[in-house]
Protein backbone atom coordinates (compact mmCIF):
# COMPACT_ATOMS: atom_id res chain seq x y z
CA UNK A 1 0.00 0.00 0.00
CA UNK A 2 2.84 2.32 0.86
CA UNK A 3 4.30 1.75 -2.54
CA UNK A 4 1.05 2.40 -4.34
CA UNK A 5 0.69 5.64 -2.47
CA UNK A 6 4.23 6.64 -3.37
CA UNK A 7 3.49 5.91 -7.00
CA UNK A 8 0.23 7.84 -7.10
CA UNK A 9 1.73 10.71 -5.19
CA UNK A 10 4.77 10.98 -7.43
CA UNK A 11 2.93 10.57 -10.70
CA UNK A 12 -0.26 12.51 -10.17
CA UNK A 13 -0.39 14.49 -6.98
CA UNK A 14 3.12 15.79 -6.58
CA UNK A 15 4.23 15.37 -10.14
CA UNK A 16 7.91 16.09 -10.23
CA UNK A 17 7.59 18.54 -13.11
CA UNK A 18 4.16 19.99 -12.75
CA UNK A 19 4.11 20.58 -9.05
CA UNK A 20 7.64 20.12 -7.75
CA UNK A 21 9.28 22.12 -10.55
CA UNK A 22 12.17 19.78 -11.08
CA UNK A 23 13.58 19.09 -14.50
CA UNK A 24 11.87 21.99 -16.16
CA UNK A 25 14.73 22.56 -18.59
CA UNK A 26 14.46 19.21 -20.36
CA UNK A 27 10.71 19.42 -19.98
CA UNK A 28 10.67 22.59 -22.04
CA UNK A 29 13.65 21.70 -24.14
CA UNK A 30 13.31 18.11 -25.29
CA UNK A 31 9.60 18.07 -25.84
CA UNK A 32 9.01 19.12 -29.39
CA UNK A 33 8.42 15.58 -30.57
CA UNK A 34 6.76 12.64 -28.92
CA UNK A 35 9.42 10.27 -30.15
CA UNK A 36 12.29 12.23 -28.60
CA UNK A 37 10.36 12.74 -25.42
CA UNK A 38 9.96 9.01 -25.09
CA UNK A 39 13.70 8.56 -25.51
CA UNK A 40 14.36 11.25 -22.95
CA UNK A 41 11.96 9.66 -20.50
CA UNK A 42 13.72 6.37 -20.85
CA UNK A 43 17.07 7.98 -20.20
CA UNK A 44 15.76 9.81 -17.17
CA UNK A 45 14.21 6.67 -15.77
CA UNK A 46 17.49 4.87 -16.10
CA UNK A 47 19.74 7.56 -14.70
CA UNK A 48 17.40 8.61 -11.95
CA UNK A 49 17.02 5.10 -10.64
CA UNK A 50 20.70 4.43 -10.76
CA UNK A 51 21.63 7.80 -9.28
CA UNK A 52 19.19 7.45 -6.42
CA UNK A 53 20.48 3.99 -5.70
CA UNK A 54 24.10 5.10 -5.55
CA UNK A 55 23.58 8.38 -3.73
CA UNK A 56 21.34 6.72 -1.19
CA UNK A 57 24.08 4.25 -0.45
CA UNK A 58 26.71 6.94 -0.23
CA UNK A 59 24.53 8.99 2.06
CA UNK A 60 23.63 6.10 4.32
CA UNK A 61 27.00 4.42 4.48
CA UNK A 62 29.55 7.15 3.95
CA UNK A 63 28.22 10.59 4.75
CA UNK A 64 26.06 9.82 7.75
CA UNK A 65 28.54 7.60 9.58
CA UNK A 66 31.33 10.10 9.11
CA UNK A 67 29.11 13.04 10.03
CA UNK A 68 29.70 14.73 6.71
CA UNK A 69 26.09 15.31 5.66
CA UNK A 70 26.97 18.80 4.60
CA UNK A 71 28.94 17.32 1.72
CA UNK A 72 25.72 15.90 0.33
CA UNK A 73 25.32 18.33 -2.52
CA UNK A 74 28.85 18.28 -3.78
CA UNK A 75 29.36 14.55 -3.51
CA UNK A 76 26.00 13.76 -5.08
CA UNK A 77 26.61 15.94 -8.07
CA UNK A 78 30.05 14.52 -8.58
CA UNK A 79 28.76 11.01 -8.38
CA UNK A 80 25.88 11.73 -10.71
CA UNK A 81 28.09 13.41 -13.27
CA UNK A 82 30.57 10.55 -13.29
CA UNK A 83 27.80 8.02 -13.33
CA UNK A 84 26.17 9.52 -16.37
CA UNK A 85 29.46 9.49 -18.22
CA UNK A 86 30.11 5.93 -17.25
CA UNK A 87 26.69 4.84 -18.34
CA UNK A 88 27.33 6.49 -21.63
CA UNK A 89 30.52 4.56 -22.17
CA UNK A 90 29.06 1.25 -21.15
CA UNK A 91 25.97 1.74 -23.22
CA UNK A 92 28.00 2.64 -26.25
CA UNK A 93 29.91 -0.56 -25.95
CA UNK A 94 27.30 -2.98 -24.75
CA UNK A 95 24.23 -1.93 -26.64
CA UNK A 96 24.65 0.42 -29.55
CA UNK A 97 20.93 0.49 -30.40
CA UNK A 98 20.04 1.48 -26.86
CA UNK A 99 22.77 4.07 -27.00
CA UNK A 100 21.23 5.46 -30.17
CA UNK A 101 17.89 5.71 -28.44
CA UNK A 102 19.00 7.05 -25.06
CA UNK A 103 22.60 8.08 -25.38
CA UNK A 104 22.01 11.42 -26.99
CA UNK A 105 20.03 12.53 -24.00
CA UNK A 106 22.53 11.48 -21.39
CA UNK A 107 24.69 14.62 -21.32
CA UNK A 108 21.53 16.67 -20.90
CA UNK A 109 20.67 14.77 -17.81
CA UNK A 110 23.76 15.68 -15.83
CA UNK A 111 22.50 19.18 -15.35
CA UNK A 112 18.94 18.16 -14.74
CA UNK A 113 17.44 19.13 -11.44
CA UNK A 114 15.17 16.16 -11.48
CA UNK A 115 17.98 13.71 -10.97
CA UNK A 116 19.78 15.55 -8.20
CA UNK A 117 16.53 16.79 -6.71
CA UNK A 118 15.00 13.35 -6.85
CA UNK A 119 18.03 11.88 -5.14
CA UNK A 120 17.84 14.46 -2.37
CA UNK A 121 14.09 14.08 -1.96
CA UNK A 122 14.49 10.33 -1.71
CA UNK A 123 16.53 10.81 1.45
CA UNK A 124 13.62 12.50 3.15
CA UNK A 125 11.07 9.74 2.60
CA UNK A 126 9.07 8.68 5.59
CA UNK A 127 10.28 5.35 6.92
CA UNK A 128 12.92 5.33 4.21
CA UNK A 129 14.66 2.26 2.98
CA UNK A 130 16.81 1.61 -0.02
CA UNK A 131 14.00 -0.16 -1.80
CA UNK A 132 11.61 2.66 -1.10
CA UNK A 133 14.10 5.23 -2.34
CA UNK A 134 14.59 3.37 -5.57
CA UNK A 135 10.89 2.86 -6.01
CA UNK A 136 10.40 6.54 -5.37
CA UNK A 137 12.94 7.34 -8.08
CA UNK A 138 11.11 5.08 -10.52
CA UNK A 139 7.79 6.67 -9.66
CA UNK A 140 9.23 10.10 -10.15
CA UNK A 141 10.59 9.13 -13.53
CA UNK A 142 7.19 7.81 -14.51
CA UNK A 143 5.72 11.13 -13.44
CA UNK A 144 8.34 12.90 -15.49
CA UNK A 145 7.65 10.68 -18.48
CA UNK A 146 3.91 11.21 -18.24
CA UNK A 147 4.23 14.97 -18.10
CA UNK A 148 6.85 15.07 -20.82
CA UNK A 149 5.05 12.83 -23.28
CA UNK A 150 1.69 14.50 -22.86
CA UNK A 151 3.36 17.86 -23.19
CA UNK A 152 5.22 16.80 -26.31
CA UNK A 153 2.07 15.57 -27.96
CA UNK A 154 0.38 18.87 -27.20
CA UNK A 155 3.32 20.71 -28.68
CA UNK A 156 3.14 18.60 -31.80
CA UNK A 157 -0.45 19.64 -32.20
CA UNK A 158 0.29 23.28 -31.48
CA UNK A 159 2.87 23.23 -34.23
CA UNK A 160 -0.08 23.20 -36.58
CA UNK A 161 -1.96 25.97 -34.83
CA UNK A 162 -1.82 29.64 -35.65
CA UNK A 163 -0.64 30.89 -32.32
CA UNK A 164 -0.52 34.67 -31.94
CA UNK A 165 2.96 35.95 -32.59
CA UNK A 166 3.47 37.27 -29.10
CA UNK A 167 2.64 33.90 -27.59
CA UNK A 168 4.76 31.78 -29.88
CA UNK A 169 7.64 29.80 -28.48
CA UNK A 170 8.32 30.01 -24.78
CA UNK A 171 5.12 31.68 -23.59
CA UNK A 172 2.75 29.18 -25.12
CA UNK A 173 4.80 26.30 -23.79
CA UNK A 174 4.76 27.76 -20.32
CA UNK A 175 1.06 28.38 -20.61
CA UNK A 176 0.37 24.81 -21.64
CA UNK A 177 2.51 23.60 -18.75
CA UNK A 178 0.53 25.90 -16.46
CA UNK A 179 -2.83 24.63 -17.62
CA UNK A 180 -1.58 21.06 -17.40
CA UNK A 181 -0.51 21.72 -13.87
CA UNK A 182 -3.88 23.35 -13.20
CA UNK A 183 -5.67 20.26 -14.42
CA UNK A 184 -3.47 18.04 -12.29
CA UNK A 185 -4.50 20.00 -9.20
CA UNK A 186 -7.65 17.93 -9.43
CA UNK A 187 -5.68 15.01 -8.03
CA UNK A 188 -5.08 16.95 -4.83
CA UNK A 189 -5.87 15.00 -1.72
CA UNK A 190 -5.63 11.57 -3.31
CA UNK A 191 -2.92 10.68 -0.84
Amino acid sequence: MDYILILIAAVFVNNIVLSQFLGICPFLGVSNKVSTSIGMSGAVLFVMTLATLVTYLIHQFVLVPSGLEYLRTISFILVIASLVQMVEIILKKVSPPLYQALGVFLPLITTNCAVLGGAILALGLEGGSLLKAVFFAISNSIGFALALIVFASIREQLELANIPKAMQGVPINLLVAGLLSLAFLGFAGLV
Partner: protein
Amino acid sequence: MAEQINQKENFLKGIIKDNPVFVMLLGMCPTLGVTSSAFNGLGMGIATLFVLVMSNIVVSLIKSQIPSKVRIPAFIIIIASFVTIVEMVLEAYIPFLFEQLGIFIPLIVVNCLILGRAEAFASKNNTISSIIDGLGMGLGFTLALTILGATREILGNGSIFDFKFLSDNASTLILFILPPGAFIALAYLTVLFNKTTSSKTN
Protein backbone atom coordinates in the same frame (compact mmCIF):
# COMPACT_ATOMS: atom_id res chain seq x y z
CA MET B 1 42.30 37.38 -26.74
CA ALA B 2 42.90 40.93 -27.60
CA GLU B 3 39.29 41.84 -27.96
CA GLN B 4 38.33 44.79 -25.83
CA ILE B 5 35.20 44.17 -23.89
CA ASN B 6 32.88 47.03 -23.30
CA GLN B 7 32.26 46.50 -19.63
CA LYS B 8 29.05 48.47 -19.52
CA GLU B 9 27.57 46.39 -22.28
CA ASN B 10 28.94 43.29 -20.70
CA PHE B 11 27.10 44.18 -17.54
CA LEU B 12 23.85 45.25 -19.14
CA LYS B 13 23.48 42.32 -21.50
CA GLY B 14 22.60 39.99 -18.67
CA ILE B 15 19.82 42.24 -17.56
CA ILE B 16 18.02 42.80 -20.83
CA LYS B 17 19.40 41.37 -24.02
CA ASP B 18 20.46 38.00 -22.68
CA ASN B 19 18.29 37.92 -19.63
CA PRO B 20 18.79 34.43 -18.28
CA VAL B 21 15.15 33.86 -17.46
CA PHE B 22 13.15 35.69 -20.08
CA VAL B 23 15.50 35.24 -23.00
CA MET B 24 17.80 32.32 -22.39
CA LEU B 25 15.47 30.18 -20.25
CA LEU B 26 18.20 29.08 -17.91
CA GLY B 27 17.53 27.83 -14.45
CA MET B 28 13.81 27.43 -14.87
CA CYS B 29 13.33 25.18 -11.88
CA PRO B 30 14.27 27.70 -9.19
CA THR B 31 12.63 30.40 -11.23
CA LEU B 32 9.32 28.65 -11.01
CA GLY B 33 9.82 26.79 -7.79
CA VAL B 34 10.68 29.47 -5.28
CA THR B 35 8.93 32.54 -6.57
CA SER B 36 5.78 32.32 -4.53
CA SER B 37 6.76 35.63 -2.98
CA ALA B 38 8.94 38.55 -3.92
CA PHE B 39 11.19 37.97 -0.94
CA ASN B 40 11.83 34.34 -1.85
CA GLY B 41 12.60 35.35 -5.41
CA LEU B 42 15.01 37.98 -4.21
CA GLY B 43 16.67 35.58 -1.79
CA MET B 44 17.12 32.91 -4.39
CA GLY B 45 18.38 35.51 -6.84
CA ILE B 46 20.99 36.76 -4.45
CA ALA B 47 22.12 33.27 -3.53
CA THR B 48 22.51 32.47 -7.19
CA LEU B 49 24.24 35.76 -7.83
CA PHE B 50 26.75 34.99 -5.13
CA VAL B 51 27.53 31.54 -6.47
CA LEU B 52 27.70 32.85 -9.99
CA VAL B 53 30.13 35.63 -9.25
CA MET B 54 32.31 33.54 -7.02
CA SER B 55 32.53 30.64 -9.41
CA ASN B 56 33.19 33.00 -12.28
CA ILE B 57 36.07 34.47 -10.33
CA VAL B 58 37.60 31.15 -9.45
CA VAL B 59 37.11 29.72 -12.88
CA SER B 60 38.64 32.71 -14.60
CA LEU B 61 41.58 32.59 -12.23
CA ILE B 62 42.46 28.99 -12.70
CA LYS B 63 41.19 28.51 -16.22
CA SER B 64 44.59 27.99 -17.76
CA GLN B 65 45.55 25.39 -15.20
CA ILE B 66 42.70 23.02 -16.00
CA PRO B 67 43.08 20.33 -18.60
CA SER B 68 40.16 20.59 -20.96
CA LYS B 69 38.94 17.05 -20.44
CA VAL B 70 38.20 17.62 -16.77
CA ARG B 71 36.99 21.14 -17.28
CA ILE B 72 33.36 20.38 -16.63
CA PRO B 73 33.87 18.24 -13.52
CA ALA B 74 36.25 20.82 -12.14
CA PHE B 75 33.74 23.57 -12.69
CA ILE B 76 31.02 21.51 -11.11
CA ILE B 77 33.11 21.00 -7.99
CA ILE B 78 33.87 24.68 -7.74
CA ILE B 79 30.23 25.57 -8.14
CA ALA B 80 29.11 22.89 -5.75
CA SER B 81 31.50 24.16 -3.12
CA PHE B 82 30.07 27.62 -3.25
CA VAL B 83 26.57 26.25 -3.23
CA THR B 84 27.35 24.28 -0.12
CA ILE B 85 28.76 27.39 1.48
CA VAL B 86 25.59 29.28 0.67
CA GLU B 87 23.58 26.41 2.04
CA MET B 88 25.42 26.44 5.33
CA VAL B 89 25.40 30.18 5.70
CA LEU B 90 21.71 30.45 4.99
CA GLU B 91 20.92 27.71 7.41
CA ALA B 92 22.94 29.41 10.08
CA TYR B 93 21.93 33.00 9.61
CA ILE B 94 18.67 33.20 7.64
CA PRO B 95 16.97 29.97 8.64
CA PHE B 96 13.60 31.26 7.59
CA LEU B 97 14.73 31.72 4.00
CA PHE B 98 16.63 28.45 4.13
CA GLU B 99 13.41 26.66 4.85
CA GLN B 100 11.42 28.50 2.20
CA LEU B 101 13.90 27.80 -0.56
CA GLY B 102 14.29 24.22 0.55
CA ILE B 103 15.59 21.83 -2.02
CA PHE B 104 16.25 24.57 -4.52
CA ILE B 105 19.38 25.69 -2.70
CA PRO B 106 21.37 22.54 -3.41
CA LEU B 107 19.89 22.61 -6.86
CA ILE B 108 21.73 25.85 -7.62
CA VAL B 109 24.51 23.43 -8.55
CA VAL B 110 22.63 22.23 -11.56
CA ASN B 111 21.38 25.63 -12.56
CA CYS B 112 22.53 25.71 -16.15
CA LEU B 113 23.04 29.45 -15.82
CA ILE B 114 26.05 29.04 -13.59
CA LEU B 115 27.76 26.23 -15.40
CA GLY B 116 26.87 27.92 -18.66
CA ARG B 117 28.55 31.18 -17.69
CA ALA B 118 31.57 29.42 -16.30
CA GLU B 119 31.93 27.46 -19.46
CA ALA B 120 30.99 30.11 -21.98
CA PHE B 121 32.41 33.20 -20.40
CA ALA B 122 34.64 32.85 -17.39
CA SER B 123 36.79 30.15 -18.93
CA LYS B 124 37.59 32.49 -21.79
CA ASN B 125 37.85 35.92 -20.22
CA ASN B 126 39.80 37.70 -17.55
CA THR B 127 38.70 38.00 -13.98
CA ILE B 128 37.34 41.53 -14.11
CA SER B 129 35.16 40.81 -17.11
CA SER B 130 34.04 37.59 -15.51
CA ILE B 131 33.00 39.35 -12.35
CA ILE B 132 31.04 41.88 -14.33
CA ASP B 133 29.48 39.18 -16.43
CA GLY B 134 28.53 37.30 -13.30
CA LEU B 135 27.11 40.41 -11.72
CA GLY B 136 25.09 41.29 -14.81
CA MET B 137 23.75 37.82 -15.31
CA GLY B 138 23.13 37.36 -11.62
CA LEU B 139 21.31 40.65 -11.36
CA GLY B 140 19.27 39.81 -14.43
CA PHE B 141 18.35 36.55 -12.79
CA THR B 142 17.61 38.19 -9.46
CA LEU B 143 15.53 40.84 -11.12
CA ALA B 144 13.53 38.32 -13.06
CA LEU B 145 12.92 36.19 -10.00
CA THR B 146 11.95 39.17 -7.92
CA ILE B 147 9.55 40.43 -10.55
CA LEU B 148 8.01 37.02 -10.93
CA GLY B 149 7.84 36.62 -7.18
CA ALA B 150 6.31 40.05 -6.77
CA THR B 151 3.74 39.40 -9.47
CA ARG B 152 2.71 36.14 -7.92
CA GLU B 153 2.63 37.61 -4.45
CA ILE B 154 0.60 40.62 -5.49
CA LEU B 155 -1.93 38.57 -7.40
CA GLY B 156 -1.97 35.60 -5.12
CA ASN B 157 -1.68 37.11 -1.72
CA GLY B 158 -2.45 40.80 -2.12
CA SER B 159 0.89 41.71 -0.66
CA ILE B 160 4.37 42.64 -1.74
CA PHE B 161 7.50 41.84 0.24
CA ASP B 162 5.08 40.61 2.87
CA PHE B 163 3.47 44.02 3.11
CA LYS B 164 -0.22 43.32 2.80
CA PHE B 165 -2.08 46.04 0.97
CA LEU B 166 -5.41 44.31 0.84
CA SER B 167 -7.63 43.68 3.79
CA ASP B 168 -7.50 40.22 5.32
CA ASN B 169 -10.89 39.33 3.97
CA ALA B 170 -10.26 40.37 0.41
CA SER B 171 -10.23 37.52 -2.09
CA THR B 172 -6.96 37.10 -3.90
CA LEU B 173 -6.06 34.87 -6.78
CA ILE B 174 -4.63 32.06 -4.72
CA LEU B 175 -3.92 30.20 -7.89
CA PHE B 176 -0.91 32.37 -8.46
CA ILE B 177 0.93 31.11 -5.44
CA LEU B 178 0.24 27.54 -6.45
CA PRO B 179 2.29 25.70 -9.09
CA PRO B 180 0.09 26.48 -12.12
CA GLY B 181 0.29 30.15 -11.28
CA ALA B 182 4.05 30.05 -11.62
CA PHE B 183 3.89 28.81 -15.18
CA ILE B 184 1.07 31.10 -16.17
CA ALA B 185 2.59 34.20 -14.61
CA LEU B 186 5.94 33.53 -16.23
CA ALA B 187 4.27 32.92 -19.59
CA TYR B 188 2.64 36.31 -19.62
CA LEU B 189 5.62 38.09 -18.07
CA THR B 190 7.73 36.75 -20.91
CA VAL B 191 5.27 38.15 -23.40
CA LEU B 192 5.42 41.47 -21.63
CA PHE B 193 9.20 41.39 -21.49
CA ASN B 194 9.46 40.63 -25.20
CA LYS B 195 6.99 43.35 -26.04
CA THR B 196 8.79 46.02 -24.04
CA THR B 197 12.29 45.08 -25.14
CA SER B 198 11.35 44.75 -28.78
CA SER B 199 9.55 48.07 -28.79
CA LYS B 200 12.63 49.62 -27.27
CA THR B 201 14.93 48.40 -29.98
CA ASN B 202 12.64 49.68 -32.68
